[in-house]
């Protein structure tokens, strides 16, 4: 399946992906209205290592997803390879945050868990982080499956 991968050699650490993500999942049509004066809780996080190398981390859509197995509400599931959260079922226990080895499940600011769903549930159509990256550092492509 297609997943999001980062090319850290081209990541500029500009953090635009985080803002594009927050906007894409805001349900609003204007970025200013969606994000101005707000703390954002993006589903993709830019990290920087000790050498100044930056890259963005988002859900890996694991073959064997420990978050799905750990969800106490049955709100997380894997459909066609995409790990989704049913927000109506999530009670905000954040067990998924506690178990995700990549730190890719994030509390959304209101106490509920959220994660990258490849922009399949919003109006973006394709991952907003990929579309908005100014330097081609985030790609959405097929790279084979884990053993």
């Amino acid at each position: 399946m297609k997943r999001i991968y980062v090319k850290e050699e081209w990541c500029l650490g500009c953090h635009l992906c985080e803002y594009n993500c927050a906007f894409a999942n805001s349900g609003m049509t204007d970025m200013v209205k969606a994000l101005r004066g707000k703390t954002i809780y993006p589903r993709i996080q830019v990290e920087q290592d000790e050498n100044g190398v930056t890259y963005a981390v988002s859900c890996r859509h694991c073959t064997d997803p420990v978050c799905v197995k750990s969800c106490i509400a049955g709100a997380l599931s894997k459909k066609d390879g995409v790990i989704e959260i049913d927000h109506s079922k999530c009670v905000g226990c954040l067990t998924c945050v506690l178990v995700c080895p990549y730190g890719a499940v994030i509390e959304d600011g209101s106490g509920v868990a959220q994660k990258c769903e490849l922009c399949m549930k919003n109006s973006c159509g394709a991952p907003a982080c990929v579309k908005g990256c100014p330097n081609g550092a985030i790609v959405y492509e097929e790279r084979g499956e884990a053993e």
Partner: protein
Amino acid sequence: MKHYVIIGNGVAAAGCIEGIRSVDSEGSITVISAENHPVYCRPLISYYLEKKTDLQRMNYRSESFYKDHGVTVLYGKTADRIDADARQITLNSGEVLPYDALCCCTGSSPFVPPMQGLDTVQSKFSFMTIDDTLALENAVMPDSRVLIIGAGLIGLKCAEGLHNRVKSITVCDLAPRVLSSILDDRCAALMQKHLEKNGISFILGTSAKEFQGNHVIMQNGAEVDFDVLVLAVGVRANTALVKNAGGSVSRGIAVDDACRTSLADVYAAGDCTEYHDISSDTVKVMALMPNAYMQGHTAGVNMAGGQAVFDNAIPMNSIGFFGLHCHTAGSQREGCEMYEESDESHIKRLFVKDDRLTGFMLIGHMHRTGIYTALIRNRTPLSSVDFARLKIEPQLAAMGSAYRDKVLKGAV
């Protein structure tokens, strides 16, 4: 065609069903469900009281789950006996069910220590099941004074759930601190302060001496009047079936990494079992939902002839009260080093021993904590990562570029 039987209908059973079906799409699966509900998530009952969920949404799986997985559920029935030699079980209805592989997902039951005068209390409840919860919901009034015996996970979640529905809540516990099973004194004190700020009262370090109707006298002399009593002292693993069948049992049903009991073709998973905790290198009952699912799934795969192990179990808890969240995992081993960061409303305690992270307690820190959990579960040598950076903030950046390449540039 194989016949699979699962005793119990909780999350471990759901995991077991999904595990079986990941290998065998043909065999028959029969689930013996004592409760008259499809599989739901017990930890959600407090969220139900809090109105963050409802009975419909508490279902762990979709309505068509059993149908989709070809499962027959026998509701309202329990198993009386396992005959491991004959590979059959006898139900309370007298029916006999043969099996090729059996999984015990019998869970646990509330444990109520003998307390003098308890029988004089009219309005008393356990807090384990939907039925307990509905009964409790019925009993509480806006002017109710609630006394909860037990300041553990269940008791406190119950307190939070009832908070907006009743006049007052008092929680008492024999332990000198709240959440004694997962927090140390310092962390517990912070959590207790937060709970008190939200109107929960505590009587700790003592137990009930005598109940007199709606009045209790504590060992330390304190007296409390109440209208509703909730008993949340603790739970005991339901081990009798396996024990009576000659299986190895101590505090829980003994299972190995493949979730096999000592009886041939009998597996067990979930709160009824005891198993190896890699963070403390001890065998214990870890009544935890994520582990229950993973055990169930492991058992299911193995029952169906596949190969699966669950060999990195650790205790872990994510629990929050009134907006303050607490993440704990692993163990605080004897002689471990502790890294600590704290202020008024946050605390971070990381426990390190022999170049491994063995456990942590985090209050108010819940960002990407799974990276810490993975360090415990994977037994990652801390000398192989930049632990100085990790202490400050969980991040993949501290895990080295080889690890990063593996997890970010390919499928995992």
